[in-house]
């Protein structure tokens, strides 16, 4: 017989849910935010500010319809200006939600449970903001349905060899599946809200949305299967969406766009900005709604680590672009990278390097990762950096292309800025409404993290 072996039983990381919670207490805490908590002045103020900013979009879009896309700063050769920069930025932000939900569900990462609902909602709102830009950019948004294949009087079908059409399919599929995934995840919590609320109209609304969910074991069995399937489908979907966005650029032959690393590098960048945005929003939410016990330090720490990892992949992408700019020995490639570094937009490039590569290196230190305020500031810096990245990719590649005679500069106009800030307003307005009327944390999954929720505790050998 063997000598007894001593095994370490150290738990290094913090808990995903603080001690002292029970099934009833987590349910009541989260439903209470929706049902019982008084609408605070802070919420009203924040909502009104966001709503006011949203009016920028309304005004800018109206003026766009009146005058046409000429009100934007775009022209030859920079035909893709702010609209595409912001589209890619928003759709990138929209990647964290489904990624957190889907990949982490597949990987059985329990820390996902507290943040997935919020991140998914964020995804939906970000994709809404993103989708608006290409549609506005067409100049005639009321004909946007032309993008879809349907029998029409023109006898025309969309051009399936164009990456822009892939984009239409990818973004609309992404929005649909994300919305479905989000709603399916909401059903049990809506049932909880239905059963907890005391007001008749609330019961009717939540009851209607919950579709009569009653937590039957037979239902749960299919429900879990469907959730898992949706997660399995959503994971490659997330990757595909930003891949397709990168194809919008890479399938062309414009130097700076036509490069094979774009797909993985865009996907990493999207997750990077997405996680940064989740942090930017989650930290205030956690603070103002007192959710420190369910969104613990461990969550923030892990999200910071993912941010760092994806940031490093993005850095790898920049390095490869620069290296192969040299290694290609191609005049245009070389000029492109040189122009980025020293050309008229060099300021943007170096600010981007500062925001996206240098500053996030602080995340190597645990002290930084667990300092909530510094982490929040870093996440904002990353968001700015990722926006600059798209600006640099879109503008610097176009403004100096093959023919020096057509070189030009691009500067956004007032209407560009108003459209962009307006979508920020739209995004925040939706977020404010969401945290007010729906449970921003998945209650039923939170219950599963509780010590008493397991039928039997695993037995140590």
């Amino acid at each position, binding site marked *: 017989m063997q000598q007894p072996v001593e095994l370490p039983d150290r738990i290094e990381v913090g808990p995903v849910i603080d001690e002292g919670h029970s099934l009833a207490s987590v349910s009541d805490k989260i439903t209470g935010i929706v049902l019982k908590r008084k609408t605070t002045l802070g919420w009203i103020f924040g909502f009104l500010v966001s709503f006011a900013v949203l009016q920028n979009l309304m005004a800018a*879009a109206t003026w766009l319809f*009146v005058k*046409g896309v000429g009100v934007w700063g775009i022209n030859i050769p920079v035909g893709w200006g702010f609209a595409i920069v912001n589209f890619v930025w928003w759709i990138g932000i929209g990647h964290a939600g489904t990624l957190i939900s889907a990949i982490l569900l597949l990987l059985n990462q329990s820390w996902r449970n507290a943040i997935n609902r919020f991140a998914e909602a964020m995804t939906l709102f970000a994709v809404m903001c993103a989708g608006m830009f290409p549609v506005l950019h067409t100049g005639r*948004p*009321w004909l946007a349905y032309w993008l879809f294949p349907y029998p029409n009087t023109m006898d025309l079908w969309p051009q399936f060899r164009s990456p822009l059409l892939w984009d239409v399919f990818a973004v609309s599929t992404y929005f649909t599946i994300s919305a479905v995934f989000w709603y399916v995840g909401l059903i049990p919590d809506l049932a909880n809200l239905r059963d907890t609320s005391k007001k008749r109209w609330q019961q009717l609304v939540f009851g209607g949305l919950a579709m009569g969910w009653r937590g039957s074991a037979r239902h749960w069995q299919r429900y879990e299967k469907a959730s898992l399937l949706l997660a399995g489908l959503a994971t490659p979907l997330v990757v595909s969406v930003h891949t397709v966005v990168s194809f919008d650029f890479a399938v062309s032959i414009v130097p700076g766009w036509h490069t094979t690393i774009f797909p993985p590098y865009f996907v990493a960048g999207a997750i990077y900005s997405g996680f940064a945005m989740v942090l930017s929003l989650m930290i205030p939410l956690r603070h103002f709604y007192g959710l420190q016990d369910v969104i613990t330090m461990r969550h923030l720490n892990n999200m910071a680590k993912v941010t760092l990892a994806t940031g490093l992949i993005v850095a790898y992408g920049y390095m490869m672009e620069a290296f192969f700019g040299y290694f290609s020995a191609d005049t245009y490639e070389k000029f492109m990278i040189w122009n980025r570094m020293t050309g008229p937009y060099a300021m943007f490039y170096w600010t981007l390097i500062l925001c996206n590569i240098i500053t996030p290196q602080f995340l190597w230190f645990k002290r930084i990762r667990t300092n909530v305020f510094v982490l929040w500031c870093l996440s904002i810096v990353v968001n700015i950096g990722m926006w600059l990245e798209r600006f640099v990719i879109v503008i610097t590649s176009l403004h100096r292309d093959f023919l020096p005679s057509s070189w030009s500069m691009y500067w956004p106009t007032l209407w560009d800025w108003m459209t962009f800030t307006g979508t920020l307003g739209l995004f925040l307005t939706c977020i404010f409404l969401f945290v007010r009327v729906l449970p921003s944390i998945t209650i039923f999954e939170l219950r599963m993290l509780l010590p008493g929720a397991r039928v039997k505790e695993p037995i140590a050998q």
Partner: protein
Amino acid sequence: MRKKILQIAVTAGIGLLSVACSRLDMQDQPKYKPQRPSDFFADGRSERPPVPGTVARGALDVDEAYYTAKGADGKDIDYFPIAVDRDLLLRGQQRFDIYCSPCHGRIGNGMGMIVRRGFKQPPSYHTDRLRNAPVGHFFDVMTNGYGAMLNYAAQVSVRDRWAIAAYIRALQYAENANVNDLPAEARNQIPPPGREITPDSVYEPLAPPDPDFNNFPNVPATPAGVPGVHGAGAAPSNQPERQ
């Protein structure tokens, strides 16, 4: 366009209606296409006549005879300033049937459809006066009008006018022709007596026409024996046309 109305309705439905209804579609663009009215010019037309005296590059009408049918003495010329051949005659026949036959009738007897409806009857080509008139006379009438007939300068190009003039000569010749003038093989194809020439039958082309009326060659060999043909081949036949 009603499609635009639809789009306006839909646009309004989704809350995007703005003051810019006129921009909702590119069906009607603020540009001039032929015969489109204009608010800018006093006469309300977008089409502008060239400034008087303007000559388009390569369109200087130096050949008096060809463009005006007048000789140096100011009288109508009695020769064709272009080569006359079968293609030109066929072209002339087609143009005659389009522009002249409504009044002059298909055989040039002055009994066209419009005349039957009350238009002043034009003289028949088969009078001695017109048979002896120089070919320039017909060209001049087409260009400047004559009596109740307004000019056709805008509708019939210079070259076509000469083609019609040639065809008129052919009609005049045919009207006085003798069976014996026909070649032997053509004589056999004459319909037996009893078949009358009806309006329907004259609508049929008199001869298998060349399929490409617009591109008939400019300088073919001149067939002999056509009256009124002088100086064949000497004419400046590649002159650009003048309306």
